[in-house]
């Protein structure tokens, strides 16, 4: 997945760590907690990182990709 989007795992981690907040996706299931973090790599590459909050308090990176289109770029700019 990360490879499909031309994103290295380390870049996704960097982007995840660059943010102070993430936006939550809705779910009817309390154990399904998914978020999107709009961050950047150390080199300044903008990335959206979709991650899961696991029950044990760890993060699982689901995917990461560059924001596409005006809508996503505007959202990224507001983070």
């Amino acid at each position, binding site marked *: 997945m990360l490879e499909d989007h031309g994103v290295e795992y380390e870049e996704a981690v960097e982007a995840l760590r660059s943010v102070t907040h993430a936006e939550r996706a809705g779910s009817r299931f309390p154990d*399904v907690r998914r978020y999107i973090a709009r961050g950047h790599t150390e080199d300044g590459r903008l990335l959206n990182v979709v991650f899961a909050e696991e029950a044990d308090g760890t993060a699982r990176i689901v995917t990461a990709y560059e924001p596409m289109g005006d809508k996503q770029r505007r959202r990224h700019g507001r983070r």
Partner: protein
Amino acid sequence: MQVGKRKGLMVPRFRNEGEEIEFWETHDIEDYLTGEVVPMETIFGSAPAGAASDLVVTLRFRRGIEDRAPLSRHFGVAIPPELTDRDFGVLFHREALPRGLDCYLVDYRRSESSWGSSGPPIRELMAELNVSSTALAEQAAELIATRVNGARGGARQPSPAALPRRLQRTIGSIARWLREYGAVPLTDEQAEALLHP
């Protein structure tokens, strides 16, 4: 914090990581967002005072042959302040690894990081394991989480002198466990060949 600003679609429950990755390949998460903005420290907690003494062990599992999912887990281990200058990387270095594990562990790194600019620095040690299947990686991740998190807090917290040994025993356990379950160690080249046949 914005709560319930707008109603989006609902994220379903997933049977496995591969299914979830496929889901997000075909669905735009922007359609599922609630508008609820959550501090990262609320999600994952913040490092305690003296956070520079925290060591985050990041284990990266290369994809298996069952699906395309890159698997990752982050584990935090509380490191006593008196050990902050210790080079834990050596525990994962090839020469220091328990017999048999050097085929699995191929890389590590250390860095300074934090949540945004406001968080305290966290030392990171990254290890990368190549295993032959996603199922093995998943099970190994659970094993590691249990073992490593067992080093945190409460009665099970090891003494500063015992912590490096505990980490090394954990690595040894993982190696034995992988061998018992028939894991096939892969080189980077082999993993890449599986990724891009």
